């Protein structure tokens, strides 16, 4: 895709359905205008919406400028914008647009709008402590921070000043929290927060967390809202009059499901066992008194949580269901030593269950029944496991929380399995999913219902906006997430010249049909034709080519047969070849070098997996992805039992047919990387538009010719004059268009 670049010298004033919006660029694209109209309608109706618009058309700036305008004009209808993004880079991009908007607003009105916008990210990106911030791994850094800032450490510090604490946190805690407005209005991205924190001597991370409640615009990661464990800490006190935006939302149902799923392997259980032993030793060390104190606090906390929920101050956490709060902690886990022996029994039971030779699939209710029969563990104490463990860990003053992550996982498992009887399934697989000789039993508690994690969000907040470049078919999302949308809309891209050229190659030069169908995968004629396609394209496409295979296995067999057939050497004559592996370190190294090869003009081919690490969250912009080749539709691995369980559930609960979901899922992955044939109606509009009849089912040679011509055309300089009026609108053009539309409606 060639993005339209724009150098900008002024802002555009728009009238969106009666709302004055300042758009911080010279021109507005027609689709941005339409996008803002739909968004305005949603906000007016105080409902939810699903909006699809291609990447690179300025979704972010349209969203931000409309919502900011709405907040300024109707401050009592809308108080807060919560913008959820996936990566730090994306967060920074949003902040950049926001800053730009504020700058123009200030220039237009003479004063900056009294809004505070801030970004929140993990401690890793915000820490300014001279030693802690040097740590590179996020989890370790969190642990070190906890060592310096946990409440009992700080208490200890008061008694004994030699105990190290974080000065930035202390400073913020004593001064920052008391200040009337710790952060003056304005827009702060991560770097701004850091420099502000350094200047004041306050911890930027805790400052940002504290300010979240007051800020008008919050930009952070999905998990701060979707992952119930994190949301509980960070986002529970947000106002109802908020609009939540999920950017790049095409994967939101999977994020929801993953947030609620737990996988337990034998290694997890062993680590949990060690954790229990450590806890046991500590319990014996410390006195009776402290434990009793601990228990009292536990009860108090639960009471507090109940009160909060009654007054609807907090967002309901799905992990801590209402009735847990209503009930009291069951007696058999009240005392620390009892609880520990309870955990031990639970772990032993799970170990027993894991030693199976064949696949077991059961419902949570059967699991509960079985556990009671075997080791006499009832449902009720299981439900309190997470809470109980948290409070115990806190009162035993453990600093290295990482040692207990496995134990936490087990406790989470216990709570979830005993809380939900519907929407979950339990699967024990003795062998690795895809290599059936490797004995490595894993217990999956998989969530099949994406509504559980996101329901609180849809009920709590006034408006939720799902937006992405690829959300087709749009009506699938409301079904999957169980909400009633006000608008479902897909926008296309208007360009003075076509910048996307989707092609469907269905035959090789020898007229053999090429397909990635499972049955014909091993056919050498097919792999050879795929290889020829890649080799031919590598000779005519400049810079980077990203190729995606449906699965690792398929890629491995295909690549090795390419090596045998000598196709790899042909590709390597034109470009360097990088292959995605399952190793994270290797991937990032490969990606780095891939980017480098694209920058220096050497050219490179990246062979990746359509659902792999590479394809999610890496932007193949400009020279990094001049062409994208999909070898077949990336259907998910349908033999997976977890998937089967989810499909069954979707069919029973939401009347979504298995095939529909699979196609939908595959298409969203393909669409993420563009292009495909007979299911054309399920591709997003902006690809469909360019996928002409004549460009489907081409042979390799024809495809190469079309590509050559397209690339030549794309290289011709485009002038601004050609674009203005077609793909860029000035203020007057928007007005005339609007008048035209109104008169048409009228007539």
């Amino acid at each position, binding site marked *: 895709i060639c993005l339209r670049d724009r150098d900008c010298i002024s802002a555009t004033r728009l009238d969106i359905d009666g709302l004055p919006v300042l758009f911080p660029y010279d021109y507005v694209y027609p689709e941005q205008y339409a996008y803002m109209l739909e968004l305005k309608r949603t906000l007016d109706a105080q409902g939810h919406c699903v909006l699809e618009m291609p990447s690179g058309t300025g979704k972010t700036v349209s969203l931000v400028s409309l919502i900011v305008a709405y907040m300024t004009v109707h401050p009592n209808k809308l108080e807060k914008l919560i913008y959820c993004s996936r990566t730090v880079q994306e967060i920074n991009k949003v902040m950049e647009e926001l800053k730009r908007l504020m700058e123009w607003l200030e220039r237009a009105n003479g004063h900056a709008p009294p809004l505070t916008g801030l970004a929140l990210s993990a401690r890793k990106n915000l820490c300014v402590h001279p030693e802690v911030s040097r740590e590179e791994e996020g989890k370790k850094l969190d642990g070190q921070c906890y060592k310096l800032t946990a409440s009992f450490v700080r208490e200890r510090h008061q008694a004994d000043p030699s105990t190290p604490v974080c000065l930035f946190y202390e400073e913020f805690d004593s001064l920052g929290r008391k200040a009337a407005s710790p952060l003056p209005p304005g827009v702060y991205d991560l770097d701004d927060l850091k420099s502000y924190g350094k200047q004041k001597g306050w911890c930027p991370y805790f400052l940002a967390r504290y300010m979240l409640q007051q800020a008008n615009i919050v930009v952070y990661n999905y998990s701060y809202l979707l992952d119930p464990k994190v949301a509980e800490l960070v986002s529970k006190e947000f106002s109802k009059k908020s609009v939540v935006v999920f950017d790049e939302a095409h994967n939101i149902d999977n994020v929801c499901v993953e947030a609620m799923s737990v996988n337990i392997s034998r290694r997890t259980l062993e680590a949990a066992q060690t954790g229990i032993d450590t806890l046991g030793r500590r319990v014996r060390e410390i006195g009776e008194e402290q434990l009793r104190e601990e228990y009292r606090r536990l009860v108090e906390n639960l009471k507090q949580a109940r009160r909060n929920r009654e007054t609807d101050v907090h967002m309901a956490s799905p992990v801590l269901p209402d009735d847990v709060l209503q009930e009291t902690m069951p007696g058999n886990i009240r005392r620390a030593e009892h609880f520990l022996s309870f955990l031990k029994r639970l772990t032993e039971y799970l170990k027993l269950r894991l030693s199976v030779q064949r696949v077991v699939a059961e419902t949570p209710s059967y699991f509960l029944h079985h556990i009671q029969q075997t080791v006499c563990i009832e449902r009720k104490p299981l439900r309190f496991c997470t809470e109980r463990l948290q409070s115990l860990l806190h009162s035993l003053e453990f600093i290295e929380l990482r040692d207990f992550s496995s134990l936490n996982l087990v406790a989470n498992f216990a709570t979830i399995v005993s809380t939900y009887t519907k929407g979950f399934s339990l699967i024990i697989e003795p062998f690795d999913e895809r290599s059936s000789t490797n004995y490595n039993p894993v217990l999956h508690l998989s969530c099949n219902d994406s509504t559980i994690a996101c329901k609180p969000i849809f009920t709590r907040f006034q408006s939720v906006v799902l937006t992405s470049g690829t959300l087709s078919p749009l009506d699938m999302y409301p079904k999957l997430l169980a909400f009633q949308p006000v608008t479902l809309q897909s926008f296309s891209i208007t360009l003075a010249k076509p910048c996307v050229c989707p092609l469907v190659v269905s035959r090789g030069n020898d007229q053999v049909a090429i397909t990635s169908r499972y049955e014909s995968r091993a056919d050498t004629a097919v792999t050879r034709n795929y290889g020829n396609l890649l080799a031919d394209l590598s000779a005519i496409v400049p810079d980077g080519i990203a190729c995606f295979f449906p699965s690792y296995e398929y890629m491995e067999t295909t690549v090795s047969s390419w090596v045998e057939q000598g196709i790899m050497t042909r590709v390597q004559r034109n470009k360097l070849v990088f292959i995605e592996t399952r190793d994270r370190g290797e991937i990032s190294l490969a990606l780095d070098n891939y980017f480098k090869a694209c920058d*220096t003009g050497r050219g490179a081919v990246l062979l990746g997996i359509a659902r792999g690490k590479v394809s999610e969250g890496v932007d193949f912009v400009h020279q990094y992805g001049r062409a994208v080749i999909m070898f077949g539709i990336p259907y998910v691995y349908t033999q997976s039992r977890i998937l089967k369980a989810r499909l069954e559930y979707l069919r029973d609960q939401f009347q979504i047919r298995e095939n529909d979901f699979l196609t939908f899922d595959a298409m969203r992955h393909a669409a993420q990387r563009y292009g495909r044939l007979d299911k054309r109606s399920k591709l997003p509009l902006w690809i469909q538009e360019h996928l002409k009849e004549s460009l489907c089912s081409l042979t390799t040679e024809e495809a190469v010719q079309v590509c050559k011509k397209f690339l030549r055309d794309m290289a011709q300089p485009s002038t601004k004059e050609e674009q203005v009026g077609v793909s860029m609108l000035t203020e007057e053009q928007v007005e005339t268009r609007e008048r035209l539309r109104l008169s048409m409606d009228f007539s």
Partner: protein
Amino acid sequence: FLQFFCAMDEDEGKVYTWETEYERSWETLQEDAEGHLQTTAEEEAYKAKRRRLFDRPRNVQLGMMRHVFLVLDGSRAMADKDLRPDRLTCAARVIEKFLLEFFDHNPISQLGTIVTRNGRAEKLNELTGNPHVHTKALQSLTSSSGDPSLQNALEMAVRGLRHVPHHASKEVIVVLGSLTSCDPGNIFSTIDDLCQQSVRCSIIGLAAEVHLCKTICQRTNGTYNVILDETHFRDLLLQHCRPPPAKATIEASLIKMGFPQHVMNGPPAVCLCHLSDRSADYITSSGYFCPQCNSKYCELPVECKVCGLTLVLAPHLARSHHHLFPLTSYEETQLTDMIVCSGCQVQVERKAYKCPSCDSMFCIDCDLFIHETLHVCPGCASTVKHHH
């Protein structure tokens, strides 16, 4: 019609239909609002030409004395047959035309040629003012192999341009068919070097836009273009005949030049240009004699091989005049009824081009011809006012 014309004046343009590439000629046809059929490609070409002509900045100091290295890609990619008969031969042919034109427009400039292949750069010719030397060298290029190396080629060009006098403009023009560059080191340091030496690097791609080339051209203030076909290729390359604006830092300086007279009936002698040929055919009685050392040349402009004086004719210098004072551009006007073009007497409908000073109307072909070749408005030249 334009393409037809070009095919006519190329003898080799004979290609059987089944030998041509798979093309979709119907896609370039478009119907406009009034139902006229016209090919968009043609329209585009005209538009681009006009834009190029009229985008020229006025009243700028131009670097008339140019030192240019022309880099030709000699890699495997040049064997591709999308230009006829293959890219290398076609490029050589286009470059030959360019060289003649170049020395015609820039009589006081020098040009050297470099070819890059097998990951190396070879210098075909040092900087000289004689187009024939280059033509001969280009004709000797027949085979293409390996990968090109932009870095090696650029470094060789920079080395060659390092000792060029300060007042001259330094340029590199690359004709690149390949999409990759096989470099031994970090090419970005070479780009820095180019910037430092204020060498302007322009690239003409024969296949598609390569990000690195774009970066190089942007950083060094050059232009980057990708060709559509042979005609477009020639257009793009010939654009480089026009001297680029001089850098603000270059100071004006005086250059010593000789204006030899043409002697018709002198003593028979071999001229210095053909001395090495040792053929009796070149013993002539007419020629140009250097005013400083009296050596004989049969063609100008040339740099005297004996004393190094630049030898030119007054018309050569006069020819560069239009670069400095270009003809004013014509205004595009929409027509309501048919008129007759004041240039070629052809009936024109819809669009015509009006000279702002004499109000004569021209068709687009005449407009381009006048601005590219004539450099004088026939309307203005024929009015009485002008003669006075």
